[in-house]
């Protein structure tokens, strides 16, 4: 009796352990990221990607880390390599989750990284693509605060340049802030970032 109980217990713990492998892995990756070890985190997300080929979040985060780090990269060789890598992982995320607004935002950020790197060469070519991606994201998820925030931030950039009124975009930011307050991610490890940024953008652009 005891034996079989122990066996069952062991069996359960082993099964239970394998079920949480994904969760512990993801959690560990976020911990590394928090601890300022973003490349270690990216490597772990990459390992999870290949161990869990059906999931979209691991490749999404590999791509996101590469994109974020590209915004400060000045060396074209490194930048190109990073963004090419990010693109592969965006593609994988897209294959695993179609019509996903979060991935579309990331893709728009991917193009924005090129524009930031060399506006003269990529600005004209990629602005239209960025705009189109945000529009599509908004169609899919009209109430996702990150979509509203990212699109408004992009619009503010160009409106400020042409000295046009920022008012409609400030309203969008305001709405994003309200939505952030009640935003519930669809599942564990889903993106949640953006609230602080929305506040900051509102402070700098919309309070005169």
């Amino acid at each position, binding site marked *: 009796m*005891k*034996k079989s109980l*122990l*066996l069952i217990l*062991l069996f359960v713990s*082993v099964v239970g352990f394998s079920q949480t*492998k994904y969760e512990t*892995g993801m959690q560990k990756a976020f911990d590394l990221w928090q601890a300022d070890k973003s*490349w*270690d985190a990216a*490597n*772990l997300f*990459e*390992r*999870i990607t*290949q*161990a869990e080929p059906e999931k979209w979040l691991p490749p999404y985060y590999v791509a996101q880390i590469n994109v974020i780090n590209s915004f400060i990269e000045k060396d*074209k*060789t*490194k930048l*190109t*390599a*990073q963004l090419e*890598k990010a693109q592969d992982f965006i593609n994988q995320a897209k294959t695993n989750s179609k019509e996903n607004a979060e991935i579309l935002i990331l893709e728009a950020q991917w193009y924005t990284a090129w524009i930031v790197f060399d506006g*003269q*060469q*990529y600005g*004209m*070519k990629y*602005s*239209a*693509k960025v*705009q*189109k991606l945000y*529009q599509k994201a908004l169609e899919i998820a009209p109430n996702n605060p990150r979509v509203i925030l990212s699109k408004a931030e992009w619009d503010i950039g*160009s409106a400020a*340049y*042409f000295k046009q009124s920022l008012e409609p975009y400030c309203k969008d930011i305001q709405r994003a802030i309200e939505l952030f307050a009640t935003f519930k991610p669809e599942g564990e490890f889903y993106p949640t970032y953006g609230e602080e940024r929305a506040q900051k953008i509102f402070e700098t652009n919309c309070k005169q």
Partner: protein
Amino acid sequence: MKFQNNKISNLKFVILLVCLSFSAYSQTEISGIVIQKNGTPIPGANVYLEGTYDGTTTDDNGKFLFTTSEINEQVLVASFVSFETFRITKSVSEMQQLTIKLREDVSSLDTVVISAGTFEAGDNSKVSVLKPLDVVTTASALGDFVGALQTLPGTTTVSEDGRLFVRGGDAGETQIFIDGIRVFTPYTPSANNIPTRGRYSPFLFDGITFSTGGYSAEYGQALSSVLLLNTIDFPDQEKTEVSIMSVGGGLGNTQIWDNNSLSVNASYINLAPYNELFPDRNDWQKPFETFAGESVYRHKFENGLFKIYGAYDATKFQLTQEDINEPEGINFKLNNQNFYTNTSYTGRLKNKWKLETGASFTLSKTDVSVIEDNIDDTEKSAHLKLKLHKNFSNRFKMSYGVEQFLTDFDEDFNNESFNANYGFNNNISAAFTEADIIFSKKFAIKLGLRGEYSQLFDAFTLSPRTSLAYKVSKNSQLSLAYGDFYQQPLSEYLKFQKDLKAQNAQHYILNYQYTANNRIFRAELYRKEYDNLVTYNADFPSSDTNFNTNGNGFAQGIDFFWRDNESIKNMDYWVSYSYLDTERKYKNYPVAATPNFANTHNLSVVGKYWIEDCKSQVGFSYQYGSGRTYTNPNENGFLQDKTKDYNSLSLNWAYLLSQQQILYFSVNNVLGFTNINGYQYANTPNVNGDFARRTLRPATDQFFFVGFFWTISDDGQDNQLDNL
């Protein structure tokens, strides 16, 4: 005691069980180091067992250590950006103290590129000398893609012609290709001494490669140079574009649905109002007028892209030009209709094969009247091409292709006393193959072979081509290129004489290139040898001229290019200088001489400055060309004198009224330099025994242009800045 024993035996059992379960999940340590070829450790590399969660990132010394519960054979993977991913299959029990050498990824940006002879524009290329926008924002170019290329080294300033003259070659020695398919009539027709323009609007293209020598075996029928234009693959959004210019107007619209897109463009140019305001040196009965329409349809397949491009344009003008031998002047009238279509398909096949295929068809009808003579010609040309490309690995690629050129040329000549009809059929079949071998990030080689069979001459030619590149330091490299090139004589000779031979050129090129931080420096030394050039014994070719192909010649020189987009904020500039030494004996030359389209020194300086506060881009372009040769019959010799030097400074200003509205101004030759293209001498001497002469000046010294460009699109962001 018994109780205790029982407890102990129970404990033993648990331990045994746990051990058993651990043996199934026993932990094995996997360890080692990841290094580069030269032994330098690689920190930050990702090392893991494929398909598992087990793995780690290498530390600062490139070392890794992790445990796994996997057993037996597993695949260990080590990957790092800019290196090829390493894989090894072995038993986990043998995965200790591994030394993993990662090979550099030769597809990365810092790999050597074969650069001899080639200038690339567009962000697909690794080293971009020109950016796509440059074509339209270069002050002197006036939106003509050929005009922008004339600021690159290796080109000669022949301002009255407008076509590309490359390294001592005449304009016919450069061929233009759209999406790999030949364009037979790339230039708009124009009168003598008036520069022509490229027929196709520059905004259709997002990649331009200009090769001034030593190009790939894929391209034939060009002795000196090829210009490769790639059309935009798929537009981003629907839009309508309106342009209103001092010389005409244009309208464009793009529609996108599902996997299809259609762009339609129409433009109308009429120089009558401009000539009214700023009369030029010609007497225009019918000022230059042209209507052009273009459309591109694209369809995306899952693994490929199909494009069909069609363009039609009609040009008309009539004018009287001064002539030293004709006191009344020479009346010239032209009517041209040109239709061009280009269909292409590129697709990925299985096993890393790629297919590129396409066809083009040109129908060009030109009716010219010169005083009393009427010349009507019709050219029908087609090009069919199929190319297969295979990536065996990042380090070894092969391509194979076959193509067929068909030309049917027909000309009617008539005046009051004479009637003639002549023409030719010129069909050429060709096959080519090329191998790209990248030995390392430092050393790459390209080997190519091209064979052509001409039905007209019943002759076969074989052209080997090779180039190699070696990286001498982090930012600089040396390239070498050699090639044999063949080209049929031009239709102006073939129409009178069909029994000729293909002309031949050999190129030898040594190139040095330095690139770093948005700065590029290039120096290129070359020698080109010509053979089998067309010769004839008359003043000008006609049906009773005796033609031959025993001309020859050479061209040699050095080209320098410097572009800097870094040193001055918001300022982008480039400087090109070319030195050219060339002589040839061809056409009706009595002796070898420097032809009148070649000069010794050419200099271009182009600058663009973005003024943030004014939302404006201002640009300038300065061109200098040393004098060109001409024959002075009052002295002994042939092409023995030189004109004075050529100078021109052009300015432009693009002002963004709003995101979608642009106002554009430009002035060519703003300082009003008096330029001389050459001299025309009388056929007979005057009473003093002197041949009188007339100076050939450009039709106008300056040209002004004002335009307003408006884009209407959903997002309200796109504009036509890249259209200017």
